[in-house]
């Protein structure tokens, strides 16, 4: 990396330049209140109000940042759309009592984040994210959710487990989490306002290493004749001259009988192909394979070990716990002892209005029978 002169760090935090601190911290408090209300709790749990309050807080912070940033620093309007969808569905992931819906909302978060990636012109990563996360990882989650659910008994098909309905210490977690938000945003404002913007693009030079592409692009634009080819003169490393010091780019062309004469084409030429720059996926490829080859090996080993580990873990036979064993025995006995036409079992064709009532009245006696039997056997 090019060494850049860093300005001396100022004594006070530079938060003021990006958003008014009162607005930011007010937004944090309001957001904490909203998330707290949105979490599932015992007793009264006004989730919709919580979501609205959190959305209001997010809006306040965004407007505060927009007013300070002015017209120049505002992100694209699509940013607001994708950010709202991503954060809203992230909130729903942690507040929805049913795991399957939480996983589906997580897919929505992933899709909105992929939109943010596209806005940041990282198209390859956006697609990779959708394919790997929404396509593979979340499907695995959904399968495990379906595999690892308690078999519902007839009277509680719709019931939620106790551990899904109530959250654990929501107040402490929310307060700590939003203190972290406040600290992070303050420090990031300081850091961001000290960043120096890059003056050159390191990746623009990489197109030097794809002479075939340059050749084809120039040929199809009519800038390169049949008997010419691109080539650097002796002593010149690169086919691009003066690519990065503010002057227009030049490509040197070799022509003549033994390609010993050279001329240059400048990017000022009206016929210069506009698509002659490194695409996102080419840039990522260069960075990944040229700059981080060792990391790819490590990632491959990690994936292999994870695969082996998952297979070994899934094969392992497990003993049921004493308590779980009793519960399972209880359930199978209950199923065995209840005749098909008992009030506990749903009738095959009958309408459902009186089914729930029958369940409520029938349940205690059925379970009493089953537990008596277990007690006798023990």
């Amino acid at each position, binding site marked *: 990396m090019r060494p850049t002169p860093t300005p001396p760090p100022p004594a006070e935090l530079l938060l003021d330049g*990006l958003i008014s601190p009162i607005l930011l911290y007010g937004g944090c408090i309001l957001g904490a209140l909203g998330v707290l209300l949105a979490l599932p709790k015992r007793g009264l749990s006004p989730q919709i109000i919580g979501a609205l309050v959190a959305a209001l807080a997010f809006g306040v*912070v965004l407007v505060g*940042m927009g007013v300070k*940033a002015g017209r120049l620093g505002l*992100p694209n309007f699509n*940013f607001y759309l994708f950010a709202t969808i991503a*954060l809203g569905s*992230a909130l729903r992931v*942690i507040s929805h009592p049913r*795991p399957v819906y939480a*996983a589906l909302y997580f897919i929505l978060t992933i899709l909105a984040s992929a939109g*943010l990636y*596209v806005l*940041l*012109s*990282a198209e390859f*990563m956006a697609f*990779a*994210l959708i394919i*790997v*996360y929404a396509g*593979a*990882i979340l499907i695995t*989650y959904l399968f*495990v959710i379906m*595999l*690892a659910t308690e078999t519902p008994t007839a009277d509680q098909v719709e019931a939620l*487990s106790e551990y899904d309905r109530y959250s*654990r*210490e*929501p107040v402490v*977690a929310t307060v700590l*989490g939003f203190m972290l*938000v406040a600290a*992070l*945003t303050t420090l990031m404002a300081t850091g*961001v306002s000290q*960043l120096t*913007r*890059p003056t050159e*693009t*390191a990746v623009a030079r990489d197109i030097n290493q794809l002479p075939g592409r340059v050749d084809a692009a120039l040929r199809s634009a009519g800038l390169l004749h049949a008997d010419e080819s691109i080539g650097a003169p002796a002593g010149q490393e690169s086919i691009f001259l003066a690519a990065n010091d503010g002057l227009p780019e030049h490509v040197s062309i070799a022509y003549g009988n033994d390609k010993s004469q050279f001329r240059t084409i400048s990017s000022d030429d009206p016929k210069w192909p506009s698509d002659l*720059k490194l695409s996102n996926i080419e840039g*990522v490829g*260069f*960075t990944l394979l040229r*700059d981080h080859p060792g990391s790819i090996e490590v*990632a491959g080993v*990690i*994936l292999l070990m*994870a695969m082996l*580990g*998952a297979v070994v*873990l*899934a094969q*392992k036979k*497990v003993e*049921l716990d004493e*308590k779980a064993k009793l*519960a399972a025995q209880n359930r199978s006995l209950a199923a065995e002892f209840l005749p098909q036409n008992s009030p506990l079992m749903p009738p095959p064709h009958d309408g459902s209005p009186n089914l729930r009532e029958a369940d409520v009245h029938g349940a205690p006696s059925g379970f009493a029978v089953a537990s008596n039997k277990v007690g006798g056997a023990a």
Partner: protein
Amino acid sequence: MNLLSTLPSTLAQAGFPAPMEPATLYHYLVVSALMFCIGLIGFLTRRNLIIMFLCTELMFQAAGIALIAFSRFHLNHTGETFVIFVLTIAAAEAAMALALVVLLFRRKETLDASSWMQMKG
């Protein structure tokens, strides 16, 4: 229609080599911080093992947004490359963690994290 013709350039924020304002970067970083903390709060409050792992994925995702935003700001692709590794780790973690969850579920027939409070035997 004007909107349709400008849509591609609107979507990919003004082409890659153009520099980005620090204030724009800050917008993305705030979204990333918020998503990370939502994931953190979820990890602390939810008691279902599967949802707890889902919340770690949410935190990975927030880190990914920050990495990509910095990569865009500095006009190089190193951040995007690291998101590839984050994806790799997330996939490996999901495979292992979910295998463990299935194992634990077969043992106690519950997904409640607090039923594993005593780690013995």
